[in-house]
């Protein structure tokens, strides 16, 4: 059985830039904002001396590692760029944690960032340089589960709309979110179609952003300014394209199921719905969040509809999901998203999430899924 990283690594500092259409900010501006907030949070005063390594994650970097080195003026440090679809930020965190657990480093900086709004397109670019796989739009890919799921379990666009409404509401409570706008289910159902069944409000926007974390090895974790937040489990799972997988069931995604099983084993979780206090899950589209409830084992397959109706995943519910408003409110700078989720879970576990604080949260999960989709990353953090 693979080894577990449980309690061997801690987050001792966290930072996050404002997310949005940051027309007047460069990647450098955002990286500096996020990293210096994390430095200050940890009480790390001399990054050049105190940091042993950097893992960064970005999908659209202009230079990647060099952007981080130059933005933060870090000399002669091992800096690695990680790319793994929408799990990019989560995987940068995982690689950093593994390097510490391997005994190589004491203190590692994780930076997730992306600046897609400098490309001049709204949403993903449409490039006609392939023959198969067109239209190549994430909305179209994620929507492929909708027809089958709706027909099998009787859910529909209204359930999806309720997820968008919840996440928009949570986003109004997060100072760094992009969209601070309350919406109604009617707004969602009447918005223009992007890719059936997704209307405009079912989709997360692309945005710019950066987030950063300082990780420490367990035995030094208490020497930092803040109470450490502990890594309980981390997993990244990949698979081939579900669209050509002869055994794909269109009712959920295999990588999430596999990564959840792996993470729960590491963290000793047997009843995720009862044991996990809050979750940040990948809501690139509303259906992604719905299917993820089931793939993560928060409820039985097909039961999401009832839990959505009873507002279980609302901020005041039994298991609040996307407490900061999720991708829906922050947008999705791919490399930053997973790290932004860890930032939110760190604040929540420390009790510092302000008006959106979930009282008594001790175990927090974050989740990304991307590609066709075929890449999943999950992290479970704990207070003790």
């Amino acid at each position: 059985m693979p080894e577990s990283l449980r309690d061997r690594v801690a987050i001792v500092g966290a930072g996050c830039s404002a997310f949005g259409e940051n027309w007047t900010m460069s990647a450098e501006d955002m990286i500096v904002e996020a990293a210096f907030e994390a430095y200050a949070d940890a009480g790390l005063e001399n990054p050049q001396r105190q940091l042993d390594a950097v893992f960064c994650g970005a999908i659209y970097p202009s230079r990647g590692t060099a952007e981080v080195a130059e933005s933060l003026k870090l000399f002669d440090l091992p800096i690695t760029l990680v790319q793994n679809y929408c799990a990019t930020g989560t995987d940068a965190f995982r690689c950093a944690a593994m390097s510490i657990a391997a005994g190589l480093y004491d203190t590692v900086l994780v930076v997730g960032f992306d600046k897609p709004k400098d490309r001049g397109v709204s949403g993903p670019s449409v490039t006609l340089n392939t023959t198969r796989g067109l239209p190549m739009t994430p909305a179209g890919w994620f929507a492929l589960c909708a027809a089958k799921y709706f027909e099998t379990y009787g859910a529909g666009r209204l359930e999806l709309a309720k997820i968008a409404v919840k996440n928009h509401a949570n986003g109004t409570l997060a100072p760094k979110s992009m969209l601070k706008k309350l919406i109604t289910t009617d707004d969602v159902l009447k918005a223009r179609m992007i890719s059936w069944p997704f209307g405009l409000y079912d989709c997360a926007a692309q945005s710019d952003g950066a987030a950063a974390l300082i990780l420490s090895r367990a035995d030094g974790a208490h020497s930092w300014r803040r109470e450490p937040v502990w890594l309980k489990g981390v997993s990244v799972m990949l698979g081939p394209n579900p669209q050509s997988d002869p055994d794909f069931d269109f009712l959920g995604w295999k990588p999430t199921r596999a990564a959840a099983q792996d993470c729960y084993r590491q963290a000793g979780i047997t009843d995720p719905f009862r044991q996990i206090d809050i979750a940040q899950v990948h809501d690139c589209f509303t259906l992604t969040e719905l299917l993820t409830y089931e793939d993560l084992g928060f409820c039985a397959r097909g039961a999401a509809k009832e839990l959505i109706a009873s507002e279980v995943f609302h901020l005041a519910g039994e298991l609040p999901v996307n407490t900061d408003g999720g991708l829906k409110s922050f947008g999705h700078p791919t490399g930053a998203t997973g790290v932004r989720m860890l930032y939110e879970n760190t604040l929540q576990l420390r009790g510092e999430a302000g008006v959106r604080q979930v009282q008594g949260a001790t175990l927090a999960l974050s989740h990304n899924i991307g590609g066709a989709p075929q890449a999943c990353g999950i992290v479970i953090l704990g207070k003790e």
Partner: protein
Amino acid sequence: MAVAAGNDCLAGCDPAGIDHVYLASTSSFFTEKSAAAIVAKALGLRPDVVTVDYGSSLRGSATALRAAVSAVASGAARAVLVVTSDVRTAEPYSAMEADLGDAAVAFVIEADAPLRLEVDGAASRQAFDVWREDGAGSLRSWEDRFVVRYGYFEPVIAAWDQLRRESGLEPSLIQHLALHAPDRRSHLELAQQLGFRTEQVVDSLFGRVGNCGSAFAPLLLAIAAWRAQPGERILSCFAGDGAHLMSWVLDRPLARSSTLDEQLKRRIMLRSYRQYLKCRGLDGGGADRKSADGISATVSYRDQDADIGFTGVRCRRCETEQFPPARVCYRCFARDDFEPVALARRRGVLLSYSKDYFFPSPMPPVVAGVCALGGSARAYLQLADYGGEELRTGLPVEFVFRRIHASGGRPAWFWKSRLIALQEVHDA
């Protein structure tokens, strides 16, 4: 269209039996590059098939049929597939526009076939009647009355007079006249001048198909041959840069797989004239062709069995099929132990779908979904010819060959799925 007609014609035949393929068209995408070779690939013909393109003249379809008959008669080929396909585009808002149509027709020519060429004769002419210079997007023509008189009446009548003299054929010996025409009026007028009564003349289909260029006389010939009784004679008249007349005798009933009515029933009404202009790239758009993107020629070369031939693989160990072909089996993980499997003529099932309003299209939404390809193989394909039908998972589909885009001036041909009407499924 050429691939669709070819597939329809070859239904039930082994494509490996075709020795030559001749494609007659004036609307190939390329000035230099064989369209017949693309059709051969898409139809899954043998790699050693002889491919010939008959271009430039609307009369090329007659030349191709004549050459096929000669090739079979001389023993150079046992079976020749003749495909003729044209897309006819006139100047927007021109009078000619309403008379034009698009169509493709295919024949297999063999020895001892049910339909036999008895005698033929041609006349060659040159005039600026109707033409399209290199690079022009739509047809140009001289004054209408000149076009009809010297581009149409004169050469057809001359060829008919000569054929009568040489063969002794008379209108009374011919039961069906399959006559190419620029418009409905001159069609009837010429038929009369040639000495035929209305009941001998195959309907010109103006208002239903229109003048479909090199495919026009072949289309009327096919209709006549399907309708004729054994022993009856059909005169087919091809026009364009002169004329070519071919007299055929039906010895036995001719098999067919689909009817014109079935094909016409599949049409989707455009919502506006503007949409027509958009679909034809006449709206000043056509940006995809000028785009700097485009498929890689090397990738397209490597992937042609899959993309144009629609060939997948079947695992020799566990029989799992997959598309596109890959090196490792999805289920048993065996390496390089596959045999090719032809998917184009199969029926499949729509497993899921989305309707995409984001992807550029003259007729949004683009419907795309995962289809089971008549076995365990699956592929994400666009749904062709979608007319707003209610969709659900499990609907039966067939596969059609289409140009997905022409970005960078290099067309990306691939297969789409198309709904099969449920009635047809029950019939089958």
